[in-house]
């Protein structure tokens, strides 16, 4: 396991900058003025709150004395919706959970249903490889978005443009595969909707090269930037014990020094076929989370590169009309295919009564689906364990005693996605 380079010196550690005489006079005057605590609303209509979170702050000057983090502004009723929807119809809804990496949600949900059906072993290997490839591409897109959006909020708009250009390359890849840039709905119970495009592998390789370059550019832009380091280092501290207590997973947990990654620790799909590392950083602060994400981008590239070499030929969805839709050729030319198609659309995949919890490593950590079936084609109950709900819960502790301006990089480093946090 490799640890990322933490040997970065910030300007703050090098010593405070002296203020100009006029500013110093102003600061001295401010010290003498009487102050009182103030209640301030931050969000939900605030760009740094992503429009979906409201923080009621009790502030004393610039210092945060207390914070009430309120979620729920993007509630879509996903879990209730799922109860009236056939299993395959739920994929478009899970796209909109963590809408920055929909492919990973697709994979997680498909695996949960397969576990309940008991067909995990029968999913074709090619489908598993495709899921890994598109999932890791989505993870890279997720991390890049998190990093550069956070940088844009700190004023680093150039980095944002570099990052978004990189994401655009990744989205083009996913669009080639699924037909949609964002809401892919590409997975199905028992596999994926269709095979990779013929030129996917060379295209993917060239895109990865470009994205690597762009991510390197972003790093060069910020990692030795004093403003960036001042605002990231030592800010938003989440000690390891607290992170565990809050149920934080994913890059935020690994940024607190805990090497927990579902892909490694509870390995699933074909992740055991690849050589990759779980990066950790022990700074417990915004910078540590940034560094973990940057390193994970590299690790995801490693996985994709290996998968592109290893991927076997074969079918991409389970060959059983009970679980998978028949081909259009069968549907239009045989009554068996027609009935199977009809029943899939109208009744859905019949899942035996029971319950299952299945969890995967999504962009923000452990994404769990807990499904209860009553034997029909629609879940009796479908619960999501969204990783960012738990990280958002830890936000209050991370910003207490900090300045208001510290909320922006801290909240950004959590990568709260309203779609999955509120569901």
């Amino acid at each position, binding site marked *: 396991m490799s640890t990322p380079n933490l040997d970065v010196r910030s300007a703050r550690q090098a010593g405070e900058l002296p203020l100009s005489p006029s500013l110093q006079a102003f600061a001295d005057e401010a010290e003498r003025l009487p102050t009182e605590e103030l209640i301030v609303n931050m969000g939900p209509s605030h760009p740094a709150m992503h429009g979906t979170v409201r923080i009621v702050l009790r502030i004393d000057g610039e210092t945060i004395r207390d914070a009430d983090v309120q979620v729920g502004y993007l509630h879509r009723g996903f879990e209730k919706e799922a109860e009236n929807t056939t299993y395959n119809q739920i994929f478009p809804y899970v796209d909109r959970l963590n809408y920055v990496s929909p492919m990973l949600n697709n994979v997680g949900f498909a695996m949960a249903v397969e576990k309940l059906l008991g067909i995990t072993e029968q999913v074709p290997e090619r489908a598993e490889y495709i899921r890994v490839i598109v999932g890791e591409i989505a993870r890279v897109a997720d991390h890049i978005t998190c990093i550069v959006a956070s940088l844009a909020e700190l004023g680093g708009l150039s980095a944002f443009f570099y990052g978004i250009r990189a994401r655009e390359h990744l989205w083009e890849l996913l669009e080639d595969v699924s037909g949609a840039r964002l809401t892919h709905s590409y997975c199905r119970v028992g596999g994926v909707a269709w095979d990779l495009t013929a030129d996917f592998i060379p295209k993917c390789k060239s895109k990865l090269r470009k994205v690597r370059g762009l991510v390197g550019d972003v790093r060069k832009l910020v990692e030795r930037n004093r403003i960036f380091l001042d605002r990231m280092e030592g800010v938003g501290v989440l000690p390891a014990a607290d992170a565990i207590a809050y149920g934080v997973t994913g890059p935020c947990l690994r940024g607190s020094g805990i090497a927990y990654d579902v892909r490694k620790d509870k390995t699933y799909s074909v992740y055991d076929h690849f050589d990759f590392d779980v990066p950790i950083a022990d700074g417990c602060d915004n910078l540590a989370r940034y560094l973990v994400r940057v390193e994970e981008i590299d690790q995801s590239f490693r996985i994709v590169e290996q998968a592109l070499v290893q991927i076997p030929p074969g079918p991409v969805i389970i060959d059983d009309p009970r679980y998978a839709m028949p081909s259009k050729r069968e549907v239009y*030319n*045989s009554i*068996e295919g027609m*009935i*199977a198609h009809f*029943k899939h659309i*109208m009744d859905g995949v019949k899942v035996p009564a029971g319950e299952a919890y299945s969890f995967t490593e999504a962009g923000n950590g452990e994404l769990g689906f807990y499904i209860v079936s009553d034997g029909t084609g629609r879940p009796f109950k479908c619960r999501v364990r969204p990783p960012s709900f738990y990280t958002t819960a830890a936000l209050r502790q991370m910003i207490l005693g900090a300045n208001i301006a510290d909320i922006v990089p801290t909240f950004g480093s959590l990568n709260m996605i309203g779609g999955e946090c509120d569901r």
Partner: protein
Amino acid sequence: MVDPSPLTPPPPGPPTQTPPPSSTAPIPVAFGPELGPVAAPAPAAPNVPAVPGPGDATVPITIDGETVVVRRGTNILEAIKSTGEEICYFCYHPGLTVAASCRQCLVDVEVRGRSMGKLQPACQIEVADEMVVRTKSPAVHKARREMLEFTLKNHPIDCPICDKAGECTLQRHYMAHDHNLTRVDVPKIRKPKVKDIGREIVLDAERCILCSRCVRFCEEIPKTAELGMVNRGDHEEIDVANGARLDNAYSMNVIDICPVGALTAKDFRFAIRTWELRETPTTCPGCATGCAVELHSKHERAYRVIPRLDPSVNGHWMCDEGRYTYKALDPELRLLQAQVSGKSSPLATAIAEAAAGLKGKKVAAVFSATATNEANAALASLADLVGAERYLLGRAEGKGDALLRDADKNPNLRGAYAAAGLQARHEGELALGLAGRAFQAVILLDCDAELSDVALRGLSEIHSVVLTDRRGPLSDACRVALPCASWAESLGTVTNRQGRLRVFQPAWRAEGDRQHAADHLRALVLALGGQDIGPSRAQTQRIAETHQDEALLALLREHEPPRPTLLRFGNSRG
């Protein structure tokens, strides 16, 4: 004129002594000739149900390793069904004789330790002592799957245009028992696609799987035997004889029992996809039989009425006439707002106007043999309050037969009689009274009878109040018309020819001014200074308690009427 004083005893509720609460009690002679004798109960089903009743001889048999005690004389198929297991069959129907032609219910049977050799059709074998049945052995699965493959071989690829799709037995069994893709690629046998074989029915011979349910139905229930099988092998098809038509009074039952979409109703063809419908268990308001039916509706529009099993009243069947009772629910035909002198008016104004005209006048109260017990009881309270002269009107007599159709086309003549306390009177009597200015005001419960011009003119000349759910000459003629909830919008009861309580359940909510007629009458009684007779629901509760109707009492315990089930979720039709 009776001035209601505190000393006046409260108006009587619905009479609880007459009619007798259960059909087993004798019918009082006071009922008069027009009520007729209690007709024969539902057509006897030829197959014995598996669940034993009290006093039935039973036999224990073993099904898939589990011992179940079933009624002696039942068949293996019914015994398997009673365990809750789904069994695959097309030709068997509990209300018809056994054909054992589809070979879909083959099971492995062992009696007294000896196998019966070949697989046996479960529908045809009677249960016996020391019988062991296996429904899940590989041989059974194989037989079932191969039979389905044969059945599907010539079945057209019609699901997208088939009215049965979504409630099709073939679709259901394919997914549950076969789910293999086709192994052959040979042209399908072509047969007549749209064949008009009767007043109500279109035949698609290609879709037919030759289960012969419809043939047996026509032979056994209406005993008209119009249908038959012609040709042989895979050219075999259902047909009517040359020149004959499938025109009996019960012909549409073949549509319900058809496991596929071979027989479709002209009325329902391409009207709506079945999975969009919601089903409401209710009662047919077409005649005094009161068949148990399901009303299928979407939003506020009804699309069809199909029979629901009730062994004590109608068995599995209903008549063709009853299936068209839903036509009156068309929103275009309904009275949706209160009217005063032909103009729409707020409900409160209309009630006040109606009450003002009834107060201190010589009033006639017209009970209705088509209205619910609740409405008639409420009208009785009002009639007592204003000292009204009573009339009871109903629909004209129609055709009846010994099976299910009753010549009395009123769903509630017995109940209305009990509430009004008098026999049905001819419409002419009311017309005469109106023409002779015998009363100054009239209050009517609409009874679907076509009133004569004399009566309508009479109504338009005095203060007349009608409670109705439809627009028409009657609502136009009356000074005040109060919009009532239809039989598909309200919870209510009627008493059928056997004296049984039959229940209307709401398929959708009555919006706006539309209310249960009993609730309008309650408002009128209150406006006239009478005692509160309670909402219609309380009256239903009272009636249910009198009749000890457990199902209705359970329904009333629910806070709101249950939402009708979407057919798509029912998914157990066929």
